[in-house]
């Protein structure tokens, strides 16, 4: 299965980005082959609907799960409609989060964890 982790950088040593819609990169990781694909998130500059656009990008990659810090209502609705599981509250490096995920230590969420526009300003939960 492929999973998507929101990332501050382009490789496994980067940290998980706490934002979904406006994170700089998506790392698409194949849990079997361990292949990593880096996608520049063009939604970072969207004037509105960044979460929707980001969820569309991730959906097009046919991932089974998204791991991030927080996810807003519109993005969650798209991911949920696409049947993609969402794991939030992740922190640390991508490598560490991957290990937590494989050990089943991440929490799946069934609703948005933040209000709209969380990723636009310096709100730290």
């Amino acid at each position, binding site marked *: 299965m492929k999973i998507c982790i929101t990332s501050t950088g382009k490789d496994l040593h980067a940290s998980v980005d706490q934002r979904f819609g406006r994170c700089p990169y998506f790392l698409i990781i194949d849990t079997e082959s361990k292949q990593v694909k880096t996608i520049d998130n063009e*939604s970072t500059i*969207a*004037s*509105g*609907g*960044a979460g*929707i*656009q980001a*969820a*569309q990008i991730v*959906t*097009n990659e046919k991932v089974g799960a998204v791991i991030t810090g927080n996810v807003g209502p*519109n993005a969650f*609705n*798209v991911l949920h*409609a*696409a*049947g993609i599981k969402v794991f939030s509250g992740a922190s640390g490096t991508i490598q560490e989060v991957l290990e937590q995920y494989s050990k089943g230590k991440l929490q799946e969420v069934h609703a948005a964890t933040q209000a709209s526009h969380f990723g636009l300003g310096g709100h730290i939960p």
Partner: protein
Amino acid sequence: MHSGITITMIIMEVIVNSTTLIIKIKRKSIKMIIAVASGKGGTGKTTVALNLALSLASACLVDCDVEEPNINVFLKAPLYTQETVTVDTPEVDTTKCDYCGKCAAFCMYNALAVVPQKVLVFPELCHSCGGCALVCPRQAITWKKRIIGTIEYGTRGTVELYQGLLNIGEAQAIPLLKALKKKIDPTKHIIIDAPPGTACPVIEAVRGADYTLLVTEPTPFGLHDLKLMVAVLRHQHLPFGVIINRDGIGNDAVEQYCNTENIPVHLKIPHSEEIARLYSQGIVFVEQMEPWQSKFHTMYQTVQQEVTASSS
């Protein structure tokens, strides 16, 4: 000539000389569309709009601050809903859609998302451009109307008021403002009360105005936002002048700026306890302070002359 100007009486003197035909037009009692804007909020746009309206023999006020219209707090005209304003939003026929995703890829406002076996529409993000329906290869997209607000109308004495009221939670004021501005009858003295700021709704509010009065206060904050609004109007090639409200506070930097930039300062409204008291009681101050009626009236005539001079 500016579109909003109507000429109630035209006297033409036709002078024919050997090479050219010169038509000299004398206008009398021209009607204008005046917009009142500010940049900074709370500088006194509504105060100026109302005092100007009540200083003219008759006027039509248009409250374009559709997120929070407040002219009628002072005018107190009985209002009725004249029009419900709608926008078109896409609806997807799932019997025709094959989830190709072209609509979502086209939409620059991210109002659509396509996932396997489902299309999600986010109506509040849609700008009703119609692009999704154009790119859909299967004609699966139709339109449905969505109410975004209302236009209310009322009169008090010789003053008319149109006000837009955007529904709570709506992000887009522009379609409502466009509908509101269609109500403008150019044979009347029109005074548009613009929303604060310098963003899209302000630009829509001042569009087509013959003249814009920029209300500011003589403070660093007032000056900062005045400069932003001056830049907007110069970019739009719209003529404007300044009114300094709460004159006496702050410093003279606004006046110095206007002098340097050759911007006329039409009026200074003092920082006065009497005006503040009337305001707090919901009274338009020209109603109690009669000398101000002629000051506003004179200002209107000055602006008329400026507009007439630049359009002839």
